[in-house]
């Protein structure tokens, strides 16, 4: 059984090396869910995971002629995905919004009122929804600095505001957000309110 699988995978690789789209599709069918689940767990959001899976398989297709026959699909996918994921992780770890998430998650874990877990993605959704209640400028400033990772200076330029104003708006907005999401019942209320 295992032998049969290894053999068929070796066949798939040799066919892929020759440019078989069919072999490529079979490999995709065999590994896409696994890779997607893995990428989702690491990147922590669906958009990134989907993009990485797409990029990884596209890369696999484009480098098909250079694949060494003795390689396994499993190791190939790891090698290709690794670089995309490392980049994604590094940006994540150094982002403000992720810090907010960790902070929130930590609080949540210590709060016995709620289910002690929230996925990062749900956290993001929640933040976005909570942001809808903020004044326009605060919303924009938070959107740009926290979610899109612009610097205060860049945001000031983009919105034609002084840097000080941006900083003020940001701190006001974050304070408001923290109040909003820090209170879990209110959060649930918000979620109910803003879910389609």
């Amino acid at each position, binding site marked *: 059984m295992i032998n049969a699988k290894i053999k068929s995978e070796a066949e798939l690789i040799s066919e892929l090396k020759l440019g078989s789209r069919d072999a490529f599709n079979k490999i995709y069918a065999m590994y896409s*869910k696994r890779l997607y*689940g*893995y990428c989702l767990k690491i990147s*922590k959001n669906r958009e990134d995971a*989907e993009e990485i899976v797409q990029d990884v398989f596209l890369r696999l297709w484009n480098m098909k002629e250079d694949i060494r026959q003795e390689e396994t699909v499993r190791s190939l996918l790891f090698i290709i995905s690794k670089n995309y*994921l490392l980049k994604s992780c590094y940006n994540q*770890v150094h982002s403000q919004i992720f*810090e907010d998430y*960790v902070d929130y998650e*930590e609080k949540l874990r210590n709060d016995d009122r709620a289910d002690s877990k929230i996925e990062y993605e749900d956290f993001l959704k929640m933040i976005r929804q909570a942001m809808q209640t903020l004044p326009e400028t605060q919303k924009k400033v938070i959107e740009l600095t926290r979610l899109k990772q612009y610097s205060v200076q860049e945001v000031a330029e983009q919105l034609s505001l002084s840097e000080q104003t941006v900083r003020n708006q940001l701190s006001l907005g974050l304070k408001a957000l923290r109040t909003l999401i820090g209170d879990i019942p209110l959060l649930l209320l918000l979620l109910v309110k803003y879910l389609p």
Partner: protein
Amino acid sequence: MKNLYSKYINNQLTVAELEELRKDNPQKFSSEMEEALNEEWNADEDYSQIPDDVVAGIKSRLDKAIDKKRRVIVPLYYKVLGWAAVILLPLFILSTLYIYKEHTQAVSEEMVVATATGEKATITLPDGTLVTLNSNSRLSYTPKVYNKDNRQISFSGEAYFNVAKDKERPFMIDARGLKVQVLGTKFNLLVRKEDKNAELFLESGKVLFTSLLKRESVVLSPNQKLTMNQMTGEMSVMKETDNMASAWRRNEMIFRNAPFESVVKAIENVYGVRIRMEYKSDSMDVFTGTLVTNDLNSVLEVIETTNNLKATKTNNIISIGKAK
């Protein structure tokens, strides 16, 4: 205790730990994270719960990306082709017109060498073939085509051919009612409309003589003379040892028991004169001897003395009468 990296993956970080993690420089981050990623990949977690439509959605975008990538190459290629067509099409049209014009010119533009009565000419064809034309002869060829695949000429009259050797490109003569094909030889060809026979005397080499009327071909060997009846196309080959056929090149006409009328005709032809016989000649009169073709007076002298005649020349008309 799990390290910070696997804690990151499993969403177990505290804010303090995240602060720690951020202190690692990118190189350390990468190598440590890679290890954690590898561990996670090999943990073989069960992801079969992931809905089909998610991977199907990625697949359709992936397929588009792959096919788009292909298309990106193709339009560029076509763009180049398109521009090439834009530039090359008028060029092709112009060159086609040019070639067509050149070609029709080449077909129509032929070299003609002709001799008038009493004239002789020697010409060298592009391949080195020497042709000596006797009077009232015409040779034509197309310089653009001549010596490409073959060496084709059209001919009428009488000429001596010294054909340059070239096995690749046969030398071919088109004449009235006959064709001659050779590789490299020396021969004399006589084909005049007004004559009864066309004649070819082969000096050396080999020629293929074709009678168009009879659709028959004869291969000649040196010192053979072929005579073809121009009316019927009938051919006959005779051994000929003397140099009658090349006499004209030595400015000679050789007659052997020739009827006097044919001698007169020959003189008329060669010198471009009209001869009026002012006496009733005996049809049995024959002439044997050699006449020169470049001195009319000496010819007339020979005629006068051998037949006891008197020739009077006024302009281009010669009256021949009995000597008193």
